[in-house]
């Protein structure tokens, strides 16, 4: 069963705007991770936020985590055409650090 669910399913914005994607999950976690996938390729790890962290930054990426609401958000600032991809959240379960479950993803399109 799906652990994470991203929202929205698809997002189209103008280059230079900020893009925000959300993820909700169901069970207790050790951490939440965000990945990016270009069409037809494998996933690339972007950022990992631990369950005791509330916010994390990496370049133009900002991730927040609210464990009370079981939700996370990924913000990409000053978007570029090259940011066009699908973005997935994934959770590393508290009961099993080995089992990683992915959400259904957000397809982000950046219009030039």
């Amino acid at each position: 069963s799906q652990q994470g669910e991203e929202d929205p399913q698809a997002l189209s914005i103008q280059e230079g705007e900020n893009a925000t994607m959300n993820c909700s999950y169901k069970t207790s976690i050790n951490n939440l991770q965000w990945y990016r996938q270009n069409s037809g390729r494998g996933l690339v790890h972007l950022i990992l936020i631990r369950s005791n962290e509330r916010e994390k930054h990496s370049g133009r990426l900002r991730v927040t985590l609210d464990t009370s609401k079981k939700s996370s958000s990924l913000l990409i600032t000053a978007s570029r055409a090259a940011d066009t991809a699908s973005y997935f959240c994934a959770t590393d379960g508290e009961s099993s650090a080995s089992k990683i479950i992915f959400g259904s993803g957000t397809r982000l399109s950046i219009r030039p």
Partner: protein
Amino acid sequence: SQTIHQWPATLVQPVGSPLSLECTVEGTSNPNLYWYRQAAGRGLQLLFYSVGIGQISSEVPQNLSASRPQDRQFILSSKKLLLSDSGFYLCAWKRVGRNQPQHFGDGTRLSIL
């Protein structure tokens, strides 16, 4: 540095034929290994994961099986493919322990005719 190899990149197979997809990892020891399937435009479905040689956890009852004959080798197999086995198959590894990211191969696109 660590690398993951997954092959073949594309595969077209008739219904009822066998399948063997291979994934190998270099540059690390005792990794956790994973097989996922992704339907077109959808998320990743965890099929199998392994925390050690010969240790396989199956997540979804199905027509597929997995084996880990060596520490850094993970194989996805089927004796008889079904049309519903079509999809994009991804292998991944991560270091043992909490708070470790996964690293993915480039995937195999499997089409069943």
